[in-house]
């Protein structure tokens, strides 16, 4: 199962154990999976009306496997006085206003499905939630991270470099025993005592409150994962591991110089993203991952993009944000095209950027559509994959309009949801999400307990 990763073939490490540890995907019942795919800055609602003839064109080859949902209202996610991109982004997949800069107002839909189907954790060897992405703006966590636990805290660490994501999924842990059996026995003895202590603090006699216990329980889960990788996965594939190539784009604080944006070429951007998307998809295909989220550009992303953009053999646009905006710093970033959107204008640059984003979202989706599972459908078709963004209008001058008509697309989730349609659902995101998770067999409902709910049956098969 060697896959091309951004044009580079890698040998897979730990092949034996992975095949052993992963729950068989040859069973007739395909595993429950849920992923959130986020792209930054959104598609203004009027452009969504153009369907596949407009910026959604790159999704057209997948149209039979997608339900495009228009007119999804996320207005309740507005946090007054806080950056609109952050509001909408934290509300995507949670449908609730943020609870802090790194805290959602509730869980994301992938996590409620995970919790319901795997209340005691994923099978050993799996990464409980994989969160990755190619993005640059990072002033607030909610801009780029899109999996949140039931308490609203982040469901995992963001893997922003392909190598980090690779390590998180396939990496070997060095316990420092050098293969010495005695040393290994002693290190395990140390770890056993550590595990016992963490168990105590998650148990009935723990002095900790519920939020803290959850935190310590997560720690315990990670120790067990460490234990498995350090002591139980011994047989490396002789061909590997071969790490993916080093990332060539900026990461960490350098990627977001004080909100002023960075210069980047289209090739640099897509090379990085393709590697990330390939590795993420591979992790899913190898059944190492069933839940999580992936981000292509953050909410309110600030990049000054340069390069020729082609699609399907034809040149769509020549990106050159700083030149076309005649500005440097933040004001020379593609973000400004969203500020300048007007239904009365051509919005040529915004259209090109949005089109490119759809091409890249489609790239990831296609990776999950390549092989068939036991039921004859692809992972793309069998999983609950939700694609969304932070706003339906980027002008920041009407939070109601900005958070109305936020683009959503979902996959069929093994025939639970309709596909092959573009639908005006005309519903709150909260109702759409609750309908989705209920269809996934989840009792937990998002949002305020006392709220009157509306079942959006139109999206169900």
């Amino acid at each position, binding site marked *: 199962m060697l896959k091309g990763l951004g044009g580079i073939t890698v040998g897979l490490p730990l092949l034996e154990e992975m095949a052993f540890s992963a729950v068989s995907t040859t069973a007739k019942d395909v595993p429950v999976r849920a992923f959130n795919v986020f792209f930054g800055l959104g598609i203004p609602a009027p452009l969504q009306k153009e369907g596949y003839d407009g910026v959604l064109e790159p999704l057209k080859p997948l149209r039979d496997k997608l339900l495009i949902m228009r007119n999804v209202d996320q207005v309740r996610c507005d*946090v007054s006085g806080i950056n609109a991109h952050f509001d909408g982004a934290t509300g995507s997949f949670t449908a609730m206003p943020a609870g802090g800069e790194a805290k959602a*107002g509730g869980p994301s839909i992938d996590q409620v499905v995970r919790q319901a189907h795997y209340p005691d954790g994923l099978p050993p060897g799996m990464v409980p939630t994989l969160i990755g992405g190619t993005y640059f703006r990072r002033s607030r966590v909610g801009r780029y991270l899109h999996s949140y636990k039931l308490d609203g805290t982040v469901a995992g660490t963001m893997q922003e470099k392909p190598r980090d994501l690779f390590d998180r999924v396939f990496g070997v842990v060095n316990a420092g025993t050098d293969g010495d059996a005695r040393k290994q026995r*002693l290190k395990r003895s140390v770890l056993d*005592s*550590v595990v016992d202590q963490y168990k105590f603090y998650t148990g009935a006699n723990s002095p900790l409150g519920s939020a803290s216990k959850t935190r310590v329980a997560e720690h315990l889960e990670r120790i067990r994962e*460490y234990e498995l990788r350090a002591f139980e996965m011994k047989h490396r594939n002789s061909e590997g591991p071969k790490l993916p190539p080093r990332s060539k784009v900026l990461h960490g604080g*350098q990627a977001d*110089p004080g909100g002023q944006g960075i210069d980047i070429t289209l090739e640099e951007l897509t090379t990085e993203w393709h590697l990330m998307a390939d590795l993420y998809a591979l992790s899913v295909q190898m059944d190492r991952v069933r839940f999580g989220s992936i981000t292509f550009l953050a909410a309110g992303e600030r990049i000054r993009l340069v390069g020729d953009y082609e699609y399907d053999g034809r040149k769509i646009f020549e990106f050159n944000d700083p030149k076309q905006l005649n500005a440097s*710093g933040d004001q020379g970033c593609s973000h400004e095209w969203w500020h300048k959107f007007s239904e009365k204008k051509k919005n040529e640059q915004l259209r090109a950027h949005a089109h490119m984003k759809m091409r890249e979202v489609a790239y990831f989706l296609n990776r999950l559509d390549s092989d068939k599972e036991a039921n004859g459908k692809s992972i793309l078709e069998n999983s609950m994959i939700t694609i969304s963004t932070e706003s339906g209008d980027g002008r*920041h001058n009407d939070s109601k309009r900005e958070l109305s008509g936020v683009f959503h697309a979902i996959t069929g989730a093994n025939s639970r949801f309709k596909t092959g349609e573009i639908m005006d659902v005309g519903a709150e995101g909260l109702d759409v999400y609750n309908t989705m998770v209920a269809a996934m067999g989840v009792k937990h409902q998002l949002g305020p307990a006392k709220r009157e709910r509306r079942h959006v049956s139109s999206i169900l098969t």
Partner: protein
Amino acid sequence: MLVAIVPSQAGDRVHEGLLALYDFRLAKGEMVKDRSGAGQPLDLKIENPKNVRRSEGGLEIRGQTLVRSVKPASKISNAVKRSAAITLEAWVQPDNKKQEGPARIVTISGNSINRNITLGQEEDRYDARFRTTETSNNGLPSLASKPGSLNLKLTHVVFTRNTAGHAKIYLNGKLNSSRSIGGRTARWDPTYRLGLGNELSKGRPWLGTYNLVAVYGRELGADEVRKNFEAGLDGESVQVELAANQRTAKEKFFDEEIVPILSRHCLECHDTATRKGKLDLSKKAKAFALSNGDKAIIPGKSAESLVWEVVESDDMPDEREPLTSAEKQLLRKWIDDGAVWTTDEIDPLAHTFDRRATENWVRRLTVSEYIRSVKSVVGVDIEKEARELLPSDIRADGFSNTAYNLKVDLKHIEAYATLAGLIVKKMDVQSFVDRYDKRLNTTDNSMRGFISNMGRDFLRGDLNSSEVAAFRGITTTVTSTGGTLEEGVGLMLEAMLQSPRFIYRVENQRGDGDFWPVSEYELATRMSFIIWGAAPDETLLELAESGDLFSPEVMNGQIDRMLADPRTVKRSIEFANEWLNLDRLANMSPNAKRFPGWSRELALDMKAESLAFFEEVIWRQNRPLADLMNAKVTFATPRLAKHYGLEPAKGKGLARYDLSNVLERGGLLTQGSVLTIGGDEASMVTRGLFVLHDLLRSGVKDPPPCVDTTPVLTKPGLTQRSIAEDRVANKSCGGCHGKFEPLAYGLEMFDGIGAFHRKDEHGNNLREDGEILFPGTAKPVPYKTSAELMNLLSGSDRVNQCLTWKVAQFALGRPLGQPDALALDKIHQESQKGGGTYASVIRAIVKSDLVQKTQTESDNEE
């Protein structure tokens, strides 16, 4: 019926320090309600109801029974454990003079031989047992009233014990007997329940009538005892006491439900500055009346309150989303319940997110705290390795030590394990062992003693027996594989370094849902991490172990000692770095054509400047935090000095510059580190919002519908100032922009990278005059120069208050909200009395309820 036979000469009962109060008002049922209003009620349940007779205000025990609390009396036990003082008061009428055992009148105990406190009857005497480190688990020796002092009349019996160990029994308001009961209350068991009429394990019945039982977490003085006696059983005086305590529930309702509604929906137009319709809903003094004399809010009468009328009809908020029906109901309930208002002024920024005080996250050590704690407990410098191996802590809500976001991933686990190995390798294990036991050997007793003593220091508190056994297990495994004692201890240390008690700040968070005093070790740990950002040292731990840290004098002495330690300076600099987000400077990349003089080195010089400036003003000059706004001194490398237009000093490093004669500079806002937040365009919006949010602790709402938010670029004839003034003058924008852009007018002469110019790149003349509208005030204050703006900021109580909040947020490691407001007000007032210095703020924080108490979660025990 009882009022007639007891005195009722005075009015109110004493309520300060009240923990539990039973007035037996219910005449029916199996429950006796705790009406103290203090924390979670500690209600009692009557076993064998047929053996009691209830009347309004009385409970007569006629046969064997037990009236016991439905959950542990932990709110009392924890408070007394902390205060070492108590008052147990009862109005009782014994059935006979033969009861003995003593027969339990009021007890907090486990069984007949284990108790915290018991008031009983020993024939013709009252008898009080009180557990301390100098009395037995049974509270012996006890204090008894004088022989023959017990009669069969209704009697007011009070037992008090103060911190110094003086115990007294008062009967009917007069001192009857006293003696010293020395020792500490560290062994009070919070799991014991409160019982009336019998021992918790039965077998010590008391027959008679109760009319009132009260418990205080402090000693009532003789005057106070007399006052309660004289108040008698007058229902009205008890009601006054109840009302005083129950008001806290209404205050809580206001803080948690109403303030967020007012902030989100009303204050945009009805704050002090805007006062649309002449209504100011941000201040208590003004919220209840319109300036024309009409009543906006009439406590108790929503139907007659204008605010309710316009909200109910959706006439308000104007051009914004109406309140939801749930919000409306809350507002209506608040008015009808008396419109209790707690704070002087509502701070809208505190309600951006829904922050209730109930979230209590265990705090993982940040990378810095981990490094310093390792240094503190084993003396090893692991900074380089830890910074390389541990993932960075992610900034959230302004700081990277925000507890809810301090999560762990696989990389952390691997790093902790690897670092533990590296730390032990760097240690001289034998010398470390010798600190505790020079004759340590592998026998069980020797090793267990060592683990207990060393573990206390390592894990910031006593180890229980199972923890000792777990660590002991490692050493036996090593021994069984032929390893040495040193190897065994080394591996045990590795385990401790990965223990949740080392990596996290583990505290007790279980209780009754109320705020509980922290334990001795918890207090030592909180103090240490707040002041030093590191684990407590031996002195603190020893004071915790002895319980002396609870003494205000000892605590003050320790705060002084810790503030004088160099670690405090480092911790404060960490605060400054986080508050101003100075790490972003290294990543800045302004447009190279516009700013050819920019370099990464210059950026790092700017960071170094601000940190050195902070250290100079706060520590070397010991000036108030607010002086950071206008102190006429700075530090610069020759490169930075040149950038600022100063004559570079000799040498390559940072040099001190006196700015007394440099008009344009002086204070943080005139430093490159802060000025660069405006980006290439030196945005007045961004700079103004920084001042508004981070110095004035205020905020504004989102832009109103349909304004063009596209930034406007400068050009000949159009400066940043004129663009900003247009926005401020614009009807749609000015309401909000007028609150923050003028805050940056005084900075226009500083370009995007902090260089000073009198003209911009287009040759436009720049200005530095403006006016500042302090939140909570109605009239802007003009300034002519940048320096005048800095002086205004420095002299502003609002800025001072904001700095207190910032330090408090960093100290507590969590965002602050309305439930914290009252405590923060007190901290601010205290710190201002101490000069408003960093040290005085820290001192006030440590002594505040925010540090001395912890929010517990209810056990829901029945």
